[in-house]
């Protein structure tokens, strides 16, 4: 088990190294960084001083090693537009994005699993068919459109929910949370639904398909022949077997929830990392873009690792093979 985890961790470091090369090369291919820092009327001598002070006259491999060593300590340089360390900016924005992503994922999991189980067990009811139709909408409508429709309905027409921002936030150390105030919670509702809707429909369809598959297996038939209650069969035996692929998808989707939050954050003017990234793209703020790339891939890699470990918790057969391999 330990060897398995270690092996996966080493693979994860390899992936991060590759992403680091891409992030670093962004600086080289987006023109001379010095030009983006200084103004047009800076003299050539002053430019050289800036170049030297930033270490840009060193050979490329030296610069890369330095960038990577700094990145490993969460130092990503200074933002061109804000003149502040990128890590400070990211840390400020991260709680907003993570809270949104977690709320969206919880929303997607809870409703996706409930709706999926229902539409598998009561396949021919009107409600199950309605769920299927809604899921088609969720899969095919683009995120920004859903966001705008929600804003139009609940913020503009009904006036129930705020159309932008996080509401009041409370500081817990460096972490700012919107979960403790009413206005913060109200501000979370629409962005979470917008961000989680795609995942919800995905999970719902997956749960439904898996559940129908599992209900046909021999061990479910045998469970029925043993006279177990329908409840025990559906929610004990069938659901647990259904959850294995759901864990994979939900886990991997958590990464794309964070990545996709760029759009949702822009629509709702949510002060998170995604909005910061969009602004950075508009202003060619490469340190922020590179750091964002590294952060998102770090999150992806971490989640993959956690999902792999979670499998072995749910499925005893994997525990055995993993144990044997180590």
């Amino acid at each position: 088990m330990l060897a398995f985890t270690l092996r996966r961790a080493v693979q994860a470091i390899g992936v991060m190294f590759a992403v680091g090369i891409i992030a670093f090369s962004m600086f080289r291919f987006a023109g001379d960084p010095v030009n983006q820092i200084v103004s047009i009327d800076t003299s050539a001598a002053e430019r050289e001083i800036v170049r030297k002070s930033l270490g840009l006259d060193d050979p490329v491999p030296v610069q890369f090693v330095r960038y990577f060593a700094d990145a490993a300590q969460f130092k990503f340089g200074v933002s061109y537009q804000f003149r502040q360390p990128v890590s400070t900016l990211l840390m400020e924005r991260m709680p907003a994005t993570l809270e949104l992503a977690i709320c969206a994922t919880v929303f997607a999991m809870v409703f996706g699993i409930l709706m999926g189980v229902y539409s598998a067990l009561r396949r021919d009811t009107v409600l199950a068919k309605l769920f299927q139709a809604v899921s088609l909408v969720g899969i095919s409508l683009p995120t920004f459109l859903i966001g705008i429709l929600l804003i139009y309905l609940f913020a503009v027409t009904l006036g129930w929910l705020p159309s932008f921002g996080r509401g009041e936030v409370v500081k817990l150390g460096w972490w700012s949370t919107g979960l403790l105030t009413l206005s913060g919670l109200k501000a979370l509702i629409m962005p979470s639904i917008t961000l989680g809707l795609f995942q919800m429909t995905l999970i719902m369809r997956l749960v439904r398909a898996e559940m129908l598959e599992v209900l046909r297996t021999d061990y479910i038939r045998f469970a029925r022949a043993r006279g177990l209650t329908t409840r025990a069969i559906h929610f004990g035996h069938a659901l647990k077997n259904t959850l294995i692929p759901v864990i994979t998808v939900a886990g991997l989707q958590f990464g794309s929830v964070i990545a996709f939050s760029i759009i949702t954050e822009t629509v709702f003017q949510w002060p998170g990392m995604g909005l910061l990234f969009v602004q950075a793209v508009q202003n060619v703020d490469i340190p922020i873009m590179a750091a964002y790339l590294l952060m998102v891939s770090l999150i992806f890699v971490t989640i993959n690792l956690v999902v792999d470990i979670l499998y072995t918790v749910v499925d005893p057969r994997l525990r055995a093979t993993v144990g044997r391999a180590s």
Partner: protein
Amino acid sequence: MTEPILSVRNLQVEFASRRGTLRAIDGVSFDIAKGEVLGVVGESGAGKSVTGLAVIGLIDPPGRIAGGEIRLAGQRIDHLPPEEIRRIRGKRIGMIFQDPLTSLNPLYRVGDQIIETIRTHLDLSESAARRRAIDLLAEVGIPAPDRRIDGYPHEFSGGMRQRVVIALAICAEPELIIADEPTTALDVSVQAQIISLIKRLGRDHGTAVMLVTHDMGVIAETSDRVAVMYAGRVAEIGPVQDVVRNPLHPYAKGLMGAIPTLAGDDKRLQQIPGSMPRLSAIPRGCSFNPRCAFAFDRCRVERPEPQPRGAQSVACHLYDNVPAESAA
């Protein structure tokens, strides 16, 4: 004679399909007495398994029991509401399926599955149910049951898993066990152990057993009586020695002729020409007539009804005008 544990009368099972209703079981009748083992034998698709599933109430739509009646110790159990037949399943009728590798839920410990079943049917505490589960595993011949009870299904071999499945089937002391091809998926040396286990359990607990198989060897070894099924009907039923030594129905004769013997005669094994008809194209009259060497005009028109011949009962026109004494 005391009342049989299981009494099936004129059972009909139909499956609705796109091309109309298919009748998988057509007028099957048999009894099983307390402590008796009834072997049900026939080719694939003869309706053996469907009969078993009908008795335990597990015919799923589009299939349904279209007629006849099933009585368990005198009580009618076909057409019971789902909740009542569920209480009978596992408690009064235990079932063993063909493939032990897929019969157990891979994510639950063996013990948890047994304890869950025990506590569904019997009013026992968790620890009492666990003690009972360990006793059951010991009874079905699993070594070190107090340790193995915490194992997962994948940690057991095929034969051991079938023993666990049997333990699950008998955990509430059922009056009847339906064993649907319990040895087909196992290798030969294990088959004999499982068969003798089922036989011993039936004897020790006075449980009636309905043993569905296509293996005549297994039937000859285990059963008290045997029912030969063909195309959803019982062709012949009777005490096992009589049917094996002196089969009456041409199909039963063909089946017995296809058993290899160890006595070194180098005769070729006989085979029955042709194959069983599809459900959508069952011939008129006797469903066996196109494959039967003795078929005459009447067989192609009129369906034969079961008629007693000594201890046996046979559905064949060959015996219509023959007095019972000279049949043997």
